[in-house]
């Protein structure tokens, strides 16, 4: 079973992402900010990380930058959740090492389609 780390400071989004992916048969771990996610990522090896950008403590871009420095996450797909207004963020995200993005608002089907796209 593929392991996914879902990071969002908003509980409702986290639950929605978590529930959707679990229902689709993925093994999902949730984290509520970048710091928590980084710690979780070092313990468990995830096949995919989906992270919100705007979060307290450690934001999503810093998380992605940090993850890319870890050998285990050198080539791991890292997706960010952005809003349609965050075009700059997409570019920033790419240079931070993000694989791609999912634009909010998204529905469960769109989320799954994107996840399947990067997990092959």
């Amino acid at each position, binding site marked *: 079973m593929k392991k996914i780390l879902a990071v969002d*400071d*908003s*509980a*409702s*989004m986290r*639950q*929605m992402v978590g*529930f*959707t992916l679990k*229902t*689709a048969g993925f093994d999902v771990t949730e984290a509520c900010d970048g710091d928590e996610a980084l710690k979780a990522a070092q313990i468990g090896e995830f096949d995919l990380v989906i992270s919100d950008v*705007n*979060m*307290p403590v450690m934001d999503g871009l810093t998380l992605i930058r940090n993850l*890319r420095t870890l050998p285990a996450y*050198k*080539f*791991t*797909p*890292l997706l960010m*959740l952005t*809003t349609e*207004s965050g*075009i700059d963020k997409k*570019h920033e995200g*790419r240079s931070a*090492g*993000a*694989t*791609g*993005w999912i*634009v*909010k*608002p*998204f*529905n*469960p*089907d*769109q989320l*799954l389609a994107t996840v399947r*796209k*990067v997990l*092959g």
Partner: protein
Amino acid sequence: MEIDLSQFSQVFFEESLEGLESMESELLKLDVNEPDDESINTIFRAAHSIKGGSATFGFSQVADYTHLLETLLDEIRDGRRQMTSDHQDMLLLSVDLLRNMIDALMRKVDFEDPLLAELERRFTAALAVNNANDDSHDENTVEATSNEDDANQMATWTIDFQPGIDILRCGNDPSLMFNELRLLGNLDVKIVDSTLPDFSDMDPEACYLNWQLTLVTEQTLEQIKEVFEWVEDECTINYHKKVHSPQADQASASENQETTQSDTPQQSPGTELTTTKPKAVTPAKTPEGGSIRVSIEKIDILINMVGELVITQAMLGQIGQQDSIDEESLLSMKQGLEQLASHTRDLQESVMQIRMLPISFAFNRFPRLVRDIGQQLGKKVELILKGEETELDKTVMEKIVDPMVHLVRNSLDHGLETPEVRVSKGKEEVGSITLNAFHQGGNIIIEIIDDGAGLDTELIRKKALEKGLISEDEELSEDAINQLIFKAGFSTAEAVSDLSGRGVGMDVVRRNIHELNGTIELKSTKDKGSRFTIRLPLTLAILDGQLVRVGKHTYVVPLVSIHESLQVEEQRINRISESHELIRLRDEYLPVIKVFQEFGHDADSHEIRDGLVMVVDSNNEKIGLLVDELLSQQQVVIKSLEDNYYKVPGVSGATILGDGTVALIIDIFGLVNLAGITNASEHAA
């Protein structure tokens, strides 16, 4: 896959309300001239999360509105716009508006408020001001209409794909992209390896290969480009199209060739972009019940305790399995039972802790309230919060907020003087209101203290006379006069002001507090200020009770209401009518309610002199209850009668005693009403 998004609505509502709260407190703290980056960030994040969530869960009204806030805040955050106090005002108003919007969503009713349109207009206007440098973002949506794109024609696309050298380091895998292209049509992949360096120069993590892809598909260019959306900036991708349609075949070759390059973006008409609109609003689940956040620490303690309990159970179980019990095992059984008692008590306490929240949740709304009302009244006020970390039950907290708001409003409106008056009295120009909370015994004490004018005893006396609450010749101490404000139908506001005259008086405040099994006291000193002290049980689920026996029945009287219990001699009993008797206790006359009469059963003592009189507090007046015997004091778990039976006058609930019998919990205020004693002091007069 069908996933019902409405199951996340409740969480979304709760976190949005929390977000609004932190937004509000940050806004209030904010110095508009030098806004603190971290504060602005917190405010932005709250708006951003609400917008994201509401859009995802289909609350488009909230999403559209918060988009405006988010845009403005983003500009402020990036330093593209200077924050003004006007912005601060608009944002604060938005906090209120959004609360109402969310409330409407929770109740599943339509939200309509002229303020919404008004604020939308103000935000749009604010955003329009010198925003010229900001519309460069839309460059990517240059529209180039190609009439061949909209038709679903079978076409052969040749795609030259030259990925950036670092593409793998971002976790992008070209082979996955090809898989995706295969979903669109028939794909042929050719590797172009001419760019491969010498083996010795090769970086194993880099991507040196190029590909030539041939895709036969009916899909539009836009859909093909979507596959490369994430990487198009770093890659060179050329698309060539050859149309298969019969008409196109007749046309000359040069005409049906179209070349587009990713670095000169061309997109089909914008209409397709709107297909990802949020789903239709699904009605939210009813907010009844709600949920609570519990720290992991509290849960760990609980688990630990349950572990202890299991150990004790195992120990007792072992003894129970023995065929005969000798002295030794009797001893260990007693020990086990003692442990069980102590663990149960600890467990009970810890479970109660789960419902406990710091009172700051209630205090948080006051900075805003005091600021707004102070401004409205032209009074300078400093709000001091103390003991914010004091914990109390969530339900109690929810119910105490309204009475507190009322008291604080009153203090602001009637208590605190205007700056001029204060100066003339030789006081500090800025008045203060203190909210203080602390634990005392099994209770929480909340104090609302102001350093204003204190209660105007002359005015209160005059009003009370007008309303017929006291008689002309009554001699009342200052304190006794002050207590009159708690009487029903009493309001001192000369003119019903916008603030205090909201149809509820202090009697309602007191009744609300009584319903929580609490009490309220007032101390006031002229020109020094007044102090309201609210005493509440920490929880509504458990009550510290005195068990009393009346005939064959056991009742529970809330301990917090009991002053004393005594035997009364014959000469101190005054019979004033067939059903009313008074006792003289020191300087006061107290009406006595015979509990057995009100509840219609027999008792040992029919006369006051035979039984015990328990002096209890009802609406700040003392009442005597005639009972047969005092039993033990104990904490009882309150079971609602309304849920299990129906509401019985004079009874606030029931509990189950150790021997399995049911004991009713006496609602003193209700019992007084039941006995038809409307005004105890009238009888005393």
